[in-house]
C-alpha cells in the first residue's frame, strides 16, 4: 500500500477501502435515510459516522464540519418550517410572534438529518480518499479518462491560480490599487485583479493543450493505463453487499411503515 500517508491521509481501514465501495456507502446511507419515514434512523447513522470518523482519525475536522453546517441549518429550518410550514396543526411552543408547530419541526428534523448523513458520509469519503485513487477507480469502471483528467486538473489549477492571484494582488497594490474602503472601491478593485489572472491562465491553457496533445492525450481507440493501481479486495465486496442489503431493508421497512402495516415510534410530520 504505497504512498498513502504521503498524500496527507492518515492510514485507516476507511482509507484502505476502494473508493467505489465508499461511494456506494454514501449513496446507500443517504438514500436509506431519505426513504425512512422519520428521523430516528438518520440519527443512528450520524452516530455511526462519528465513530467511523474517529476510526479514520479525522474526528476533529469532521465534527467541525458537521456542527458548523448542522447548527445554523437546524435553526434556520426549525424557524422556517417549524413556524410557517403549511402542514402545521399541533402547536408545541408559543414564541409570541409565531407558534412552533409539531409537524413542521419533525419535517425540519428529517431534512436536517438527511442532509447531515449525506454531508457526513460525503465528507468522510472525501477526507479518506486520495483524489488520484478516486480518479483511477473511476477510469477503471469505464469513466472516460478525459473526465478523470478534468477532475484532477481542476483540483490542481485552483491552488495554482490562487498563488498567481496573490502575486497579482501585491503588484496591483504596488501600483496603487485600493482594495479596502467602501463598497464601490472594493467592487472597482475586482476587475483589475481578475483580468490578469484570467488572461494569463488562458494563455497557459494553450501551452497545456499543446503539451497534452504531444503526449497522446487526444488519441483514440487505445485504452490508457493508469499510474495508480486501485485493488478491489474481498472486504470491499463484503462492504458493498452490506450497504446494498441495508438500503433494501430500509426501503422495504420504510414502505411498510408508510403503508401503515407496521408502526414506528415517531411518525413523520408529513403524514399527519
Amino acid at each position: 500500500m504505497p504512498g498513502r500517508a504521503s498524500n496527507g491521509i492518515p492510514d485507516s481501514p476507511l482509507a484502505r477501502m476502494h473508493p467505489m465501495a465508499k461511494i456506494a456507502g454514501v449513496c446507500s446511507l443517504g438514500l436509506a435515510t431519505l426513504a425512512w419515514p422519520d428521523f430516528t434512523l438518520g440519527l443512528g447513522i450520524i452516530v455511526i459516522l462519528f465513530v467511523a470518523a474517529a476510526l479514520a482519525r479525522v474526528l476533529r475536522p469532521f465534527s467541525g464540519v458537521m456542527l458548523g453546517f448542522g447548527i445554523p441549518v437546524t435553526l434556520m429550518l426549525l424557524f422556517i418550517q417549524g413556524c410557517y410550514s403549511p402542514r402545521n396543526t399541533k402547536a408545541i411552543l408559543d414564541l409570541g410572534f409565531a407558534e412552533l408547530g409539531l409537524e413542521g419541526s419533525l419535517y425540519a428534523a428529517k431534512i436536517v438529518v438527511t442532509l447531515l448523513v449525506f454531508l457526513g458520509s460525503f465528507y468522510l469519503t472525501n477526507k479518506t480518499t486520495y483524489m488520484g485513487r478516486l480518479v483511477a477507480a473511476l477510469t477503471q469502471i469505464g469513466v472516460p479518462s478525459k473526465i478523470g483528467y478534468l477532475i484532477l486538473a481542476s483540483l490542481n489549477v485552483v491552488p495554482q491560480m490562487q498563488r498567481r492571484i496573490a502575486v497579482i494582488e501585491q503588484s496591483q497594490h504596488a501600483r496603487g490599487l485600493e482594495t479596502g474602503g467602501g463598497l464601490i472601491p472594493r467592487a472597482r478593485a475586482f476587475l483589475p485583479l481578475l483580468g490578469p489572472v484570467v488572461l494569463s491562465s488562458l494563455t497557459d491553457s494553450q501551452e497545456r493543450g499543446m503539451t497534452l496533445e504531444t503526449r497522446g492525450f487526444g488519441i483514440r481507440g487505445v485504452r490508457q493505463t493508469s499510474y495508480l493501481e486501485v485493488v478491489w479486495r474481498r472486504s470491499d465486496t463484503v462492504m458493498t453487499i452490506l450497504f446494498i442489503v441495508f438500503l433494501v431493508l430500509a426501503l422495504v421497512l420504510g414502505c411498510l411503515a408508510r403503508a401503515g402495516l407496521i408502526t414506528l415510534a415517531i411518525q413523520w410530520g408529513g403524514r399527519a
Partner: protein
Amino acid sequence: MSARSLWRGITAQFSTKSLVLIPIAVGINLIGGTLSSTLKLPLFLDMIGTTVIACLSGPWVAALCGLLTNIFLALVANPVYLPYALSSVLCGLVIGYMVKAGLFKRIWGVVLVWLACALVNTVTASLITVLVYGGATGVNGTSVLTAALVVAVKNIVISVLSSSMLENLIDKGITVLIAYVIVRRIPKRFLSQYALDGSDDQADLDDLDDLDEDEDDNEREAAGASSQERPARPRKVDGAAESDCGSSTGDPADSDRERTQRSER
C-alpha cells in the same frame, strides 16, 4: 439523423483545446467566488468562468464546466453545493446557446443573456432549495433574507423565490458584465482557435476597439449614449492583451476620465 448530427456537434465542442480550458474556467469560477469574499462583496460571482467558456467553446462545454465547478465546491468547500450543479449546468447551456445565436455582440443581447440566466438560475435554484433543503441552506445571507420574507408573507415558496430572484438579478448582472469585459479583452488571435469563431465574427472584430470599457461604461452603453463616444480611443487588441496588467490598472483612471467627460456633456 438530426439527433446524430446534434450529438456530433456536441462532441465536436470537446476538443483538447476546449478540454484544457475547462479547468481554467472552473478556476475562474472559484477565484471569482474567493475574490468576492476577500473583497467582502455580498455576492457569489461564481459563474464568470462558465460564461467566458460559453463564449469560447460552446454550450455543452460550459455545462460540463458548471457541473465540475459544483463538484469541486462540494469536494473542497461544502457538499451542500452539489445539488445546485443542476442550475449551473442549465445556465451554462442557456448562455452557450444565446451566445451561439450571436447575442453577446450587442448590448441588448448581453442584457437578454443576463435576464435569461438570472431567470433560469432563480427558478432552478429555488426549486432545489425548497425541494431538497426545505427552504434554507444556512450557508449564506440569502437564507436570512428568506427567513425575513417568510415572516412577512408567510409562504415558504414565494419567499425563497423572491429572495433568490433578488440575489440572482444582482449577481448574474455583475457576472455577465465582467465576463463580457473579459471576453472583449481576449486577443482575437486566441479567440480564433476555438469552436465558436463563426464566419460572422470577422465583422465583429472591427468593433473590438475600445477595450478599456469599465462597468459604468457598459451601463452607459445600455442607456444608449455610447454611439457618439465609443470610437474615440481606438486601440490594438493584441497590445492590450500583452500588457494586460498595465491596461487593467489603467481602468479606474480611464473610466474616471470618461465620467468627467460625460458630466461635462
